[in-house]
């Protein structure tokens, strides 16, 4: 078994009494694209900052390429390219100047630094804007420049914090395609955080769902779905022409089919869920029993459902948390009113 390139063991971070990251364990292998998925304020950015050694963890450790990020931040930063959310550049410098500056900070020899910056800008599709001031860049162009900036140091690991925030849909597609190509071409490990599940679904090999500082689940999308809907990962919805009069007998008959675990009948619609995909058997069953089937729809669980499901579970906790903050607010406002 290969040593994972990113290893997080029991990472915890407190901001005052607020627990931003709670006992996080995670391992990411070389060449993987890992998506950190979670709502705003879930602790994704804090985790990333701790990975880079930019914030000290309260407990636990993060190791990148075998190096402890909190103890050896400089060698770690040499190997990791990081693009923050709202990436910013020196507005009064041109794209090329911005990149050469970062190149110099990374110790690229003076003779090479301009050429390498130029090549990088061409690679991310900014050759036309090479001498344009970064202040005049659009959001999407800045994001591309940010990617060039990350790649310039030839990192082993790339960490992208909300890379698709604020770009239009075509821009997002191009950007994600670029990331995927780069990962394949150079064997890079990529960790990206996002709250856009569809985008994560497009490029990531594996995702981790991160809510309230805790990693609720990790794995590829199929395993996640299987974990969550473990009772019945596959569901088929069959629509019939006429409503079923005698439901009980039919239900028992369907349940006798292999791998079926649940059946609900509602007028003309029959929903069957089970452990395996047996859509052909189900259709055959209905036809053999003389029903007129007008539609068969297979349901698959995307990240949407997974996301929704996790947040529903989490909602209950939030409600109890909000009580105390609500109390605080009330007293604050009442004090205001008195004045």
């Amino acid at each position, binding site marked *: 078994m290969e040593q994972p390139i990113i290893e997080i063991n029991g990472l915890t971070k407190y901001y005052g009494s607020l627990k931003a990251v709670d006992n996080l364990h995670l391992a990411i292998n070389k060449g993987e694209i890992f998506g950190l998925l979670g709502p705003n304020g879930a602790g994704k950015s804090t985790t990333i900052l701790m990975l880079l050694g930019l914030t000290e963890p309260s407990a636990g450790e993060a190791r990148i390429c075998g190096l402890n990020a909190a103890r050896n931040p400089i060698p770690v930063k040499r190997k990791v390219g990081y693009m923050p959310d709202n990436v910013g550049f020196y507005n*009064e410098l041109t794209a090329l100047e911005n990149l050469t500056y970062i190149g110099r900070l990374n110790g690229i020899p003076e003779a090479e630094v301009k050429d390498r910056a130029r090549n990088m800008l061409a690679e991310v599709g900014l050759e036309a804007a090479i001498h344009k001031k970064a202040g005049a860049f659009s959001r999407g162009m800045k994001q591309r420049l940010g990617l060039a900036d990350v790649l310039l140091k030839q990192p082993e690991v790339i960490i992208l914090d909300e890379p698709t925030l604020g770009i239009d849909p075509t821009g997002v597609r191009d950007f994600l395609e670029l990331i995927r190509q780069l990962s394949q071409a150079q064997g890079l490990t990529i960790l990206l955080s996002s709250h856009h599940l569809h985008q994560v679904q497009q490029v990531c090999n594996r995702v981790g769902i991160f809510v309230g500082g805790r990693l609720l689940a990790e794995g590829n999308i199929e395993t996640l779905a299987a974990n969550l809907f473990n009772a019945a990962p596959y569901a088929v919805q069959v629509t019939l022409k006429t409503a079923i009069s005698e439901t009980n007998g039919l239900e028992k008959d369907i349940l006798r089919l292999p791998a079926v675990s649940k059946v609900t009948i509602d007028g003309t619609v029959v929903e069957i869920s089970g452990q395996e995909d047996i859509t052909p058997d189900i259709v055959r069953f209905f036809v053999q029993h003389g029903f007129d089937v007008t539609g068969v729809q297979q349901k698959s669980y995307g990240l949407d459902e997974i996301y929704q499901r996790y947040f529903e579970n989490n909602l209950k906790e939030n409600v109890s948390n909000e009580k105390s903050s609500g109390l605080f607010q009330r007293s604050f406002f009442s004090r205001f009113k008195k004045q």
Partner: protein
Amino acid sequence: MKSQAAYFNGLFSAGSKSNNQPPHQATNPFFAMVRKEVADQVHSWRFIILAGLILLTFLGSMYVSLTNISKAVSNINDPDRLYLYLKLLTTTDGSLPPFHIFIGFLGPLLGISLGFDAINSEQSGGTLIRLMAQPVYRDSVINAKFVASLIVITTLFLSLNLLMIGGGLIITGVSMEPSELMRILCFVILSVIYVSFWLNLSILLSVKFRQPATSALTAIAIWIFFTVFYQIIVNVIIKAFLPSPDVLSQDQLVAYNRIILTFLRFVPSQLYTDATTTLLMPSVRSLGPLTMEQMAGAIPSPLSVRESLLVVWPQVSGLIAATVVCFALSYYLFMRREIRT
């Protein structure tokens, strides 16, 4: 510098052991940062405007002193009359203050304008976090900002004074005493220290406040407080608390005067004015009141450079201490702060 930076890293990251830097690094990242900061400062409008302002006052006061120089040099009662170049810096006919008084006034503005957005504009622009993600030590950022501004200030003052010396040589043809050169160089160093105090104060405020406007206004408020209100407040308090001078003996009067002077010397510009006056006028022997016993037998002649420096040494060390305290505070706050936006 490099080894020092490595030492600091060891201090703050609790003993990093492996420092596997590539053997031949092209440019030290610290100097790359200094280079970029200097370029930024020199290209920025605020520096161009303030440097232009200082150049204008320099030319104005030089013009005034050059037109009055013959009168000043032929004044037999003045023991300093033979120091032509010091006279160039200090002579005036009252229409325009001499150059060092101008610097006492404009120096703080220069320092504030160079430093007030050092850290917070990088943070709000999102460049600080990107910078910190590069393999550079955190303190390099603040050190580079300080060193870059220091280079800019030193270059400005040194070139202005050398310009003055060169111009004086061409116009008057009088050769220069080594002690004069020493005094002028000390004046340059003193001005740099004075401006860097205000620079560090504004860097400190830029670490503390997130909005550049807040830090700039606070720095200017501190400057105005010290230049205008502090003297007024001290005077009001003196009037309220001190007994009437008529009932005091000579000794008591001297003692009270010393206390008042001590309070007035909390103002950086007062320290600067005291120090420059002593350096540029070799006959000044004391900055406080002198008793008759002390004056008895003294010949009104210029002091040597060393003795002038001894007279102003408390002022100089006070200025250096204030500068170092400001820098240390901003260093501490910057190293401790969360850099996320």
